[in-house]
């Protein structure tokens, strides 16, 4: 057992942290969230230049990482900084494209030149990965996809559909015939859209795609949890600072024992969250993957809610304001429970997987 990062990963963590600390402030983030684009193209290009996207891909795919610990490292830093760039889209769509042999597209994703986003959720489908109503007939797609991440910025959509040979992955360029978007902000500060397809010409990439999709959603779930872990670290740090500086009754709030104990509990939960993410990262790609992903996602759902609610509570009124940095991190970590299956979804899955 060894819990230290390799030298290369340590360097990546340091440079990412330095870069993001430099480029993200609460004001900058607020301005980006308020703007239509939803993220900063320059930051995205710079992240790619730093190798943050390449770290998510194996050497055979044109990257230099791709393991669970690489994914966790990158996303923890993005969550810690509250970054809004389309890294999740790059991880999922890029990962899928790489395994389907589209190295040309992957190279452009890694370079930060191309944004491809996966459209897989459907209304009423809850957390189900399988398409339910979107159909592919004679190379044309029709249906309605929900919560497509960074859809307005995407150059290409990777769409799941029911085809003649089962679950199919097909590629559609932006601006294709019969494709329309209803875009909106999401509560975690990101942007998404409802994607409607009406006999849209599409390029079929893979049939029988469910196992591949499941594998990549597992990777995305790990990324989401690491992002939450990073956001929790920031919320914790903000709260500690606040308790040390805010004075009531003639002393810093942090001197009240009842608040000290609440913070001590949060510190314990934060370490549990870190261990759960490490477990999931370490088991990625093994036969224990699914069980560890579900264990961790359940634990993250519980601890992130606790962290968000406690951080707001212990801040008092200031913790409720949009302008103060905590608001974004609290929303980000609570809303993570609504992605890739929530606490209960993964509890049921963990029970089912443990029974066999």
């Amino acid at each position: 057992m060894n819990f230290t990062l390799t030298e290369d990963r340590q360097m990546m963590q340091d440079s990412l942290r330095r870069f993001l600390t430099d480029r993200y402030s609460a004001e900058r983030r607020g301005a980006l969230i308020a703007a239509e684009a939803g993220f900063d193209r320059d930051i995205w290009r710079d992240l790619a230049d730093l190798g943050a996207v390449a770290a998510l891909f194996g050497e055979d795919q044109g990257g230099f990482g791709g393991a669970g610990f690489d994914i966790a490292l990158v996303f923890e830093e993005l969550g810690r900084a509250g970054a809004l760039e389309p890294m999740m889209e790059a991880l999922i769509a890029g990962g899928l494209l790489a395994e389907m042999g589209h190295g040309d597209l992957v190279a452009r994703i890694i370079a930060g030149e191309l944004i491809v986003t996966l459209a897989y959720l459907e209304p009423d489908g809850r957390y189900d990965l399988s398409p339910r109503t979107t159909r592919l007939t004679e190379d044309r797609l029709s249906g309605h996809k929900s919560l497509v991440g960074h859809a307005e910025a995407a150059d290409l959509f990777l769409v799941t559909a029911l085809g003649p040979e089962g679950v199919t992955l097909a590629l559609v360029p932006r601006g294709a015939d019969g494709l329309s978007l209803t875009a909106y902000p999401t509560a975690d500060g990101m942007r998404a859209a409802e994607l409607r397809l009406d006999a849209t010409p599409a390029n079929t990439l893979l049939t029988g795609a469910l196992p591949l999709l499941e594998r990549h959603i597992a990777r995305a779930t790990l990324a989401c949890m690491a992002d939450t872990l990073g956001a929790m670290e920031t919320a914790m740090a903000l709260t500690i600072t606040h308790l040390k500086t805010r004075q009531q009754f003639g002393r810093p709030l942090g001197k009240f024992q009842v608040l000290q104990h609440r913070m001590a509990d949060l510190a314990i939960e934060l370490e549990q969250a870190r261990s759960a993410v490490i477990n999931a990262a370490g088991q990625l790609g093994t036969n224990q993957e699914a069980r560890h992903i579900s264990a961790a996602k359940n634990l993250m759902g519980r601890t992130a809610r606790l962290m968000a609610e406690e951080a707001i509570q212990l801040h008092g009124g200031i913790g409720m304001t949009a302008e103060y940095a905590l608001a974004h991190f609290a929303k980000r970590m609570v809303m993570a429970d609504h992605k890739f299956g929530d606490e209960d979804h993964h509890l049921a899955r963990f029970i089912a997987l443990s029974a066999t």
Partner: protein
Amino acid sequence: MDLTYTAEETAFREEVRAFLAEHLPRDLSEKVRLGRPLSKQDHEAWHSILNGRGWLAGNWPKAFGGAEWTATERHIFEEETTRAHAPRIVPFGLTMLGPVLQHFGTKAQQEHFLPRILNGEHWWCQGYSEPGAGSDLASLKTRAVRDGDDYVVTGQKTWTTLGQYANWIFCLVRTDPTAKAQEGISFLLIDMASPGVTVRPIVLLDGGAEVNEVFFHDVRVPVANLVGEENKGWTYAKFLLTHERTNIAGIGFSNAGLETLKRIAHAERDGAGRLIDNPLFAARLARVEIDLMALSTTNLRILSAAARGQAPGADSSMLKVKGTVIRQEINDLTRRALGPMALPFVSEGLEGANDGIAPDYARPVTAQYFNNRKLSIFGGSNEVQRSIIAKQVLGL
């Protein structure tokens, strides 16, 4: 012990129900049901309808134009109005300031201000908190200096709920900076149209702007607007806080929230079935309903111990803590119930902007969850309430 309502109480319930069926405007109840924001005019319209029936001030003595209800009658009224999705009664004039003026105001103040609270001419807001004085309210710094027949007020209040609608603010101000913290405070009524008053909105994490900062720069306030004695404001402030707690359990809100939650859990699909059939979710829902059933009785037990028109004792702090925890839990479950569809965060300003994104019922849920984190912070935070329980109820 008898848990059944008396014949009079049942008749009262019928009367309230019939009144609501006839007089609660549909457009208002629809807004409340769907969690849409209410405008100033919406609140005023509903107040005026209730005032016409003599039901606006259920907690006030009849002598002042109130209904002088018992705790049970108030409970029935709250149950029926929330069930019918009536707007809440804005509390600042009616629940907070009214009782203070009735106990400590001069006859002239009572005659001038109380009718104007009832007829809506005055919209009050509460100027207690300051940037440096939250839980430690007695450390407030806003100064009022006597100058002839006026006080000159300088300082800042914050978190002032609906201050943007108000034309009057009741403030705690420091009149004796040399006295011990609690002893140099006075209770002052300030016309917000006075020169030197500025109101600035604060946007909260749900995107709404219901609270404000209120600044005072050399604002002249007639001495006639001092309530009670100079430097005795802390006594009145504490009196007000106990009255504020008469409706603190929020049973009606929780009942209405639970009903919405059940409706959503029946409508939401989960795998092949409905969310309500998911045993994990059903268990969460059942637990909070069980808590609420017990709290409903705890609420009546504690409130009934106080005589008509009187404030409950320190044990009502228990109602604040448990009531807010239950409301927040219901908000949490409602958010969970939506699954991924809790994510779209469409500003309420954009009417119709949510069309085709998620079901109508999904629209206010996430914002409400985040907004109601305030419940355990304001009105005396839950930590402060626990200290009151420990010290004043348990004698620790």
